[in-house]
């Protein structure tokens, strides 16, 4: 794969595994009541964030969604701070006030997850203006779902980004469903990427379970955006392995469909096998990497559990001023 070094590929593998193990853990913690509220697992979709974030620079921005843990991890998010946030602790990314849907990190240029479907899409326009105005060739990577692409803000934002030639890469994670609504029944055109025509920008479809395809598409889009060629729309065809949230039995979709994706299109399994086959890593190395990652996830749980609860007095004092 042109543009992908061996190190890049190993980094992508590590990111995939990190997201997988983190998400498996959060589901466990949700089921035991340690995490509450809403939790939207990214299992099955790991390749999108892993490939996409590898294709942009540290200084570039990302805009995330309610299903945002993977984006945050791929952009370099701190597992301890993430886990602490999910447990509502004071050491978490949002001091325990935001939970799963609101993680942000200025240093890492993560402009925030969002509880509002599509809420981040217009924000990407503003970040795009900033990048264009400062003229340092930075770009914005804006993640959203197939469901979000049906809200008005998607259309307004892509139109404006195109009119002003903003350096934004729109990446639609089409996991086929928006809660129970299948994208086949909710998107009037064949593919979300078709909509790029209306906004005069490239529209690219990639296999969203293959991180290298995503890497390539985002790299190309970023190159164009940095040169002032404006936004692109990439549609990554992917699948969420779980229901919309851990308590959703996903009765609205066929079991065979889910089984197919889990057995044939698992991005973590497939990429691991690919790198082993191409002798980029050995089986033993993968096991070591996996163990290390599993340990760091366990570590994050310990960190979160041992962290203090947010200080109520301080909160009440702060609230007086807003």
């Amino acid at each position, binding site marked *: 794969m042109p543009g992908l070094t061996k190190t890049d590929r190993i980094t992508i593998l590590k990111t995939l595994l990190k997201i997988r193990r983190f998400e498996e853990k959060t589901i466990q913690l949700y089921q035991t009541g340690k995490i*509450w*509220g*809403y939790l939207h697992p990214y299992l099955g979709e790991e390749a999108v964030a892993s490939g996409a974030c590898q294709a942009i620079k540290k200084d570039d921005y990302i805009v995330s969604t309610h299903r945002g843990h993977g984006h945050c991890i791929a952009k370099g998010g701190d597992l301890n701070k993430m886990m602490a*946030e999910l447990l*509502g*602790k004071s050491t978490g990314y*949002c001091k*325990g*006030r*935001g*939970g799963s*849907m*609101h993680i942000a990190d200025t240093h890492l240029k993560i402009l925030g997850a*969002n*509880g*509002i*479907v*599509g*809420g981040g899409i217009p924000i990407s326009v503003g970040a795009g203006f900033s990048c264009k105005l400062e003229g340092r060739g930075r770009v914005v990577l804006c993640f959203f779902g197939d*469901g*979000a692409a*049906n*809200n*008005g*803000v998607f259309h307004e934002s892509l139109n404006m980004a195109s009119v002003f030639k903003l350096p934004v890469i729109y990446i639609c994670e089409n996991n086929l469903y*928006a*809660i*129970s*609504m299948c994208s086949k*029944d*909710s*998107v009037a055109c064949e593919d979300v990427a078709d909509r790029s025509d209306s906004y005069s920008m490239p529209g690219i479809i990639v296999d969203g379970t293959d991180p290298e395809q995503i890497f390539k598409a985002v790299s190309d889009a970023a190159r164009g955006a940095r040169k002032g060629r404006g936004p692109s729309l990439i549609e990554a065809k992917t699948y969420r392995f779980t229901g919309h949230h851990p308590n959703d039995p996903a*009765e*609205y979709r066929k079991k065979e469909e889910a089984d197919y994706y889990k057995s044939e299109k698992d991005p973590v399994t497939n990429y691991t096998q690919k790198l082993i086959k191409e002798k980029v890593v050995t089986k033993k190395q993968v096991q070591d990497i996996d163990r290390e990652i599993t340990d760091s996830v366990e570590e994050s749980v310990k960190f979160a559990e041992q962290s203090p*609860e*947010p200080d*109520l007095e301080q*909160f*009440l004092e702060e*609230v007086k001023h*807003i």
Partner: protein
Amino acid sequence: MAEIEYREALRQAIIEEMDRDPKVFLIGEDIGVYGGAFRVYKGLLDKYGPDRVINTPISEAAILGAGVGAALTGYRPISEIMFIDFATLAMDQIVNQAAKIRYMTGDSLNVPLVIRTQGGAGRGVAAQHSQSLEAWFYHVPGLKVVMPSTAYDAKGLLKTAIRDDNPTMFIEQKMIYLNQGEVPAEEYLIPFGSADIKREGTDITIFAYSAMVFEALKAAEELEKEGISCEVFDPRTLVPLDEQALIESVKKTNRLVIVSEACQRGSVASDICARVVDSAFDWLDAPIKVVAGLNTPIPYNSTLEQASIPHQADIVEAVRKLI
């Protein structure tokens, strides 16, 4: 009388009205096979089919606009906004269209639309899924605002809302869907603007609506042990408001506490306070107290979340201060 869940009461109201009037239909996100985020529509897709249970893309403005358009052309839609927080995306259709059309057109057009939605804190779903935004709609002339607390009220009021020729914001609270309440087998409707005294008392009136009615009732029970008799006044509909019944209650008890989960700044609670001062000042033996949510986006952490909204203890304390 049978005890049923609040959400089942809503479901019954919808079924009875859909059976009675073929012009009634439902439109919203995940209301089909999924049965709605809070399962109020369970089984309705099978019963009425996809033409009357319209499962839509995530397009709040269009869901509301479709409601307005269908209402203008002879149907009686129930448009659902899954969380009141997402009404922000549909605000033009609610505020500038639904609420205005009848008045702007000199009564020549009606908008018989029900906007069903849900709000409030308590589930750890943080700042963008926990707001109490009723004051926004209360503020806009042309909208009715209904916030039922019990299963009985929910059913009777939803039926009235569906039959009403004007747009109604029907706001539920996410923590009370599973509450059980008595609902009679025979049909009944509850007129808008008729308050319900949920508990009779003589020493003080506690005005509370939606989920806060239950906190007020618990507070009243506790205060009774101290010999304080509280009247719990549930307006059931905020617009129209049964102001006369409230004034009568205040004239009887001479004291008033107003409870609301929403934060106080620019709130319904503040407005009620002003209205009572204006029309019943001479009967008041003490200042009016407002017990409201804090002026804060609702936090995720449970301790902070609970500290952001009123509880039984806050109401008890407020009552004690006045007596």
